[in-house]
């Protein structure tokens, strides 16, 4: 009796990868990375945020390579990030200096600088536009030309890089709890393991790079009653944030501008009962959310979770271990999919146990 | 900055820590920081960077060079992740070590690793070592400073708290004593 060993794992993998590569080309259609970068903003912004790597070009490349699979694209970018040397930390950047493209408040009808709607799908009627099936290059150029030659509307009353925060108004009335400036060096979760109880900087980092769906789901749960936060969106701003790098912090503060990134920032106001000098007073607490790219839903959900985690309670949304350990795209999808790996040795052990017990096995048979 | 040199050095350090008492020979470093041994500098090059801190006992010039070379920050001894003791016969040096980090029960790894320069790891008193990494016991013949061993005994008395030590000699040999190793000086026997 000849024995045939089960070999060929390598060949099987090769064949599988060839199949995968074929899926992308089987219809014979080319899509350029530049085209993806220009026309797939939503995907690019989501992927940059979840992979915690700001590069529209790389995100577009990952999108092309992964055939639009967000899980895979984020994975590619995070792994790529692991190979890059970390040369500098940026200086503290203040979104007050953001070159705003969109800025609204739900808490006030009008705000200094105005409600700038900018570009957002919020006001769309979500009806499929079938004309896009026939769109040609010429159509695109025409639409571009039409918009660019339209009369420029009235400018905002205030310069777009110096718009005040809505929060300033509440602060000036003393309705927001005053906190001393906290200049503690933030923790870096990509360099040091997250520990519990978590610090605010750890939480904000994990939330901003969290899987969009997970953050949204938990934020939603927070609004529906699993949390005790009832937030009001004080301000959402989306625009370009200048980034500076300080070289050699030991001498002087030479800060070099290295570019601007698209950023979404949300400040939510949450009324809280606070004890001041023995009296119960109503004050506004703040929830904060910020993401690479235009990711408004996620940033708002993040602000709900930020506030919930700052105020621990006995519900899942207020539990930092529950929230922070389960929102990472790469970790959750990796572990879930690892269930597909062979587990026959451990399963065999269990099988043996179950059979023994069924047979009425005695003590340590 | 040679990644193969640091990898090779790391494997040797690991071997020394895994089998306490075993001597390993390190290469020369690519850069020198006087008056440290070349191999001490290589140890720093291999393990230090901007994410950890160090302290050099009684020498600020070395601290500046090491900071420039590794990116690691010099701090007070009580806060340092790595404590470097250049070749020094002074007993007082070791008594200063009573405040080095020994970790805490939740995080015993937040403890100092010491690099101690000695003149010879192949000549001197006899010590019997036992503990994890050592099959039964092993005897070494090295010039380990007894004042240090006393201090070490005190710092390591509540396992898992404690410090871990690497000794370097003038030949570039390295010997490791993780906190789990028991060290007993073998006294000369009286001839009967």
């Amino acid at each position: 009796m000849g024995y045939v060993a089960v070999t060929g794992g390598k060949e099987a993998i090769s064949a599988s990868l060839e199949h995968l590569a074929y899926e992308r080309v089987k219809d014979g259609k080319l899509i350029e990375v530049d085209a993806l970068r220009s026309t797939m903003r939503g995907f690019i912004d989501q992927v940059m945020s979840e992979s915690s790597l700001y590069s529209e070009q790389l995100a577009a490349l990952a999108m092309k390579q992964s055939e639009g699979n967000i899980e895979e694209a984020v994975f590619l970018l995070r792994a790529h990030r692991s190979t890059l040397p970390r040369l500098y930390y940026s200086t503290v950047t203040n979104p007050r200096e953001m070159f705003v493209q969109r800025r609204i408040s739900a808490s006030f009808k009008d705000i200094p600088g105005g409600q700038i709607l900018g570009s957002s799908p919020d006001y769309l009627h979500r009806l499929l536009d079938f004309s896009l099936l026939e769109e040609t290059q010429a159509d695109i150029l025409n639409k571009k030309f039409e918009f660019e030659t339209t009369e420029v509307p009235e400018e905002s009353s205030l310069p777009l890089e110096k718009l005040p925060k809505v929060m300033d108004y509440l602060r000036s009335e003393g309705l927001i709890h005053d906190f001393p400036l906290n200049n503690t060096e933030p923790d870096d979760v990509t360099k040091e393991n997250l520990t519990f109880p978590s610090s605010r900087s750890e939480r904000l980092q994990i939330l901003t790079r969290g899987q969009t769906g997970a953050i949204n789901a938990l934020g939603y749960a927070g609004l529906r009653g699993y949390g005790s936060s009832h937030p009001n969106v004080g301000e959402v701003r989306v625009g370009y944030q200048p980034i500076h790098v300080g070289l050699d912090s030991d001498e002087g503060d030479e800060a070099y501008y290295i570019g601007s990134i698209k950023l979404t920032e949300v400040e939510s106001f949450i009324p809280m009962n606070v004890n001041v000098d023995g009296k119960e007073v109503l004050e506004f607490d703040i929830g904060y959310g910020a993401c690479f790219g235009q990711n408004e839903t996620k940033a708002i959900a993040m602000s709900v979770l930020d506030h919930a985690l700052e105020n621990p309670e006995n519900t899942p949304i207020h539990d930092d271990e529950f929230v922070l350990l389960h929102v990472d795209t790469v970790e959750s999808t990796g572990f879930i999919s690892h269930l597909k790996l062979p587990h026959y040795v451990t399963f065999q052990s269990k099988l043996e146990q179950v059979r023994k017990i069924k047979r009425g096995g005695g003590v340590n048979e | 900055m040679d990644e193969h040199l640091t990898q090779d050095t790391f494997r040797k350090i690991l071997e020394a820590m895994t089998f306490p008492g075993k001597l390993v020979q390190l290469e020369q470093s690519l850069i020198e920081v006087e008056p440290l041994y070349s191999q001490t500098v290589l140890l720093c090059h291999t393990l230090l960077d901007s994410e950890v801190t160090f302290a050099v006992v009684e020498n600020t010039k070395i601290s500046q060079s090491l900071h420039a070379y590794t990116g690691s920050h010099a701090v007070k001894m009580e806060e340092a992740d790595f404590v470097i003791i250049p070749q020094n016969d002074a007993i007082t040096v070791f008594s200063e070590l009573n405040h080095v980090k020994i970790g805490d029960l939740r995080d015993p790894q937040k403890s100092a690793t010491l690099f101690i320069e000695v003149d010879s790891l192949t000549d001197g008193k006899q010590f019997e070592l036992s503990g994890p990494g050592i099959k039964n016991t092993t005897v070494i013949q090295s010039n380990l400073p007894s004042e240090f061993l006393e201090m070490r005994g005190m710092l390591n008395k509540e396992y898992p708290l404690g410090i871990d030590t690497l000794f370097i000699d003038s030949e570039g040999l390295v010997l490791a004593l993780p906190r789990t190793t028991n060290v007993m000086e073998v006294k000369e026997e009286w001839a009967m």
Partner: protein
Amino acid sequence: MNKFPFAFLDEQSKKEIRRAILKGVAIPGYQVPFASREMPIGRGWGTGGLQVTLALVGKEDVLKVIDQGSDESVNAVNIKKLVQDTTGIETTIHTSEATLIQTRHRIPEVPLRSDQILVLQVPEPEPLRPVERSEFKTKQLHAEKEYSGAWLLLFEQIMRYNQTTQGADYPVLVHDRYVMNPSPIPRFDNPKINNSDALMLFGAGREKKIYAVPPYTKVASIAFDDYPFEIERFEGKSCKVTGLSNIFLDEMTDEVTGETYYLCNDTSFMKEFLEKRGTVYVR
């Protein structure tokens, strides 16, 4: 295609892992936290073990990778390929030829030597996780050497089934101090960790922990006096090809006859055994 550093990780990442390994060796069985970079393979697929291997590996190393005891398993082949692609080192299926062995869920049958390092992939490093969800709390339990939870886990099994049903992940006490999860190796392999000639390193990438058991360290599977620790015994069963029965066996079913039979789980061990015996090994 040399856009990456040797062994994929940049020097700073390797340093952090190396520092964690050294502390792990100094505190046997204690889970040292580390930052755990993302790898090109998925979390849960061996990124912890892989990071340890990549931090260790040098030009002269010879690598063996197994999963469920097999060198041919898809996961093992993938990991081996990744290390090879990023380092150019030699690989082998023969345990005795390897200097580094990365494994998932088994310790090789061939006894290890002092010049070898075993790296085990760990999905869940925390032995107390089944009884305590919170990481904050389990860290405190380890700090206080408060391990009644681990005993409770076994006790409940005994109460229900009159025996311990813990197949793999069977907790051990290391150097009389830390209760450790030896990874999902079968109970059969637990004794190999005790007083081993080789260093064993454990990497949990997703949970971000590294731990170690140095050679010649006391490692005892926890048990009650009246319910002593027992390894799996394959009474009345033997490998269909080699006839061996004192090693871990895989259960197989004949596709044609539906008959159950057994084969050595450690495939390279079986291959070497057959080659030594002079049996022709047909692929």
